[in-house]
């Protein structure tokens, strides 16, 4: 089996105020997989995500990306490969205009002039925000800011795309358009979400995090239909939604990489 592109082993982390958020997380994601990361509020999902490009540094255990351990000397390379869309778009957008913001990453990668422009407009086009290119990000609505935040990361053309609750605050059409974008990209995706139908629609595999460690890892369909697991981890399907009634042909299949593990008892 190939080396996982994301390889997290025994990861434990405590925030500087002493609050421990992760208690030994194991997670392996292979190239081309689309994996949903599920779990209740405060489970440690965002904390885990922040370790994937070295923003937080493992207290114990290890994180590596495409075989490179996440440590200071590999950070530049790792940050080029892993693109993270943060949970709060206001943390992501900091330049004066949408165009400058989306261009920030590619410019750091050395692009300039027409190539940079093309990259920026292409990314904005994917999220349907080209006409907002010259507006200041803080004048946009929350959902628009979220779309720009996605564009800032797409513009860097990462190999691994990590999204922290990308569908929250999107209107239904934007939510679907984002799904189309994610499906069309040839990248590995790790998506944190509370939107279980979205996980089922996009990700063949799901990992459930609870109280700072992994409690389940398997096919999304199996996770969502395991009532005991769902109840134990405060996961609830939206009213009227039942995965069992969905035509299996509509579910995503794992095309590459490893399909699913078995659910731990």
């Amino acid at each position, binding site marked *: 089996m190939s080396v996982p592109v994301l390889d997290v082993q025994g990861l434990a982390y405590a925030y500087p105020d002493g609050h421990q958020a992760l208690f030994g997380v194991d997670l392996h994601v292979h190239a081309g997989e689309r994996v949903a990361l599920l779990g209740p509020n405060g489970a440690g999902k965002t904390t885990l995500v922040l370790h994937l490009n070295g923003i937080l540094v493992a207290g114990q255990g290890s994180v590596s990306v495409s075989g490179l351990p996440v440590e200071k000397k590999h950070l530049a390379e790792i940050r080029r490969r892993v693109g993270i869309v943060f949970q709060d778009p206001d943390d992501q957008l900091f330049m004066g205009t949408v165009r400058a913001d989306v261009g920030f990453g590619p410019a750091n*990668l050395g692009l300039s002039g027409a190539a940079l422009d093309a990259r920026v407009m292409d990314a904005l086009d994917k999220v349907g925000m080209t006409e907002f290119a010259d507006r200041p990000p803080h004048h946009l609505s929350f959902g628009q800011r979220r779309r720009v935040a996605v564009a800032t990361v797409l513009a860097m053309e990462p190999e691994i795309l990590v999204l922290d609750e990308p569908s929250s605050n999107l209107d239904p059409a934007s939510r679907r358009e984002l799904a189309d974008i994610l499906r069309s990209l040839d990248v590995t995706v790790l998506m944190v979400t509370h939107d279980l139908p979205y996980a089922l629609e996009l990700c063949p595999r799901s990992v459930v995090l609870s109280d700072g460690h992994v409690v389940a890892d398997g096919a999304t369909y199996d996770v969502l239909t395991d009532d005991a697991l769902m109840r134990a981890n405060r996961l609830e399907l939206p009213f009227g939604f039942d995965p069992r009634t969905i035509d299996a042909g509509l579910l995503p299949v794992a095309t590459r990489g490893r399909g699913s593990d078995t659910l731990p008892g």
Partner: protein
Amino acid sequence: MGGAHGHQLHFHGHSPVHRAPAHLKIVALVVFMLVVVATPRGWWPAYAAYLAVLLAVVATSRVPPTYLLKRMVVEVPFVFFALLLPFVATGPETEFLGLTVSESGLHAGAKLLVTATLGVIASLTLAATTEPQALLRGLTRLRMPALLVQIMGFMVRYLEVVTDELRRMKVARESRGFSARDPRHWPVLARSFGALFIRSFERGERVHLAMLSRGYTGKMPS
């Protein structure tokens, strides 16, 4: 000690003074003030000429004079000092407006008043016509070391967050009947200072980490 700082002093406009490159404006300010400071006391016509030059620049910039006047309060403590000088300085004495005052004190006070005023107007004009980001680029062109530019960049960015939160906390405190009148109130001020520090740092830290995530290495791509 020190009056109130106004908030962001930039006055939006499109005059030639606004458009002039920031590094030239900084150099002009420094040279102008060096000349003013080096002018011996008593050369009143020269000072009148400086003032005329300065007022011409202000007029070209189309920044309303009242806008500048209101912001000249930073000078107030030293106006007091200048006005006091003739009375506390030693040395030979003269008559001025019917008062017996120290001659050297009178001259020193007058010169201080004039130079400080020219300095404040000149700096305010620079501040009013130059955005902080342009200033940063200007200083970079003038070869200010990258680390200082970087710290200053973060400072300017944090300033808005901090002053905003500071104002909000002050309003919150005062709307609950608290106002800082004597040293017994220091603990309240200090604790809100600590809380504010952490709050703004964490907000800024997240933005900084987002920048690092997108390949930022300390230099803004231009």
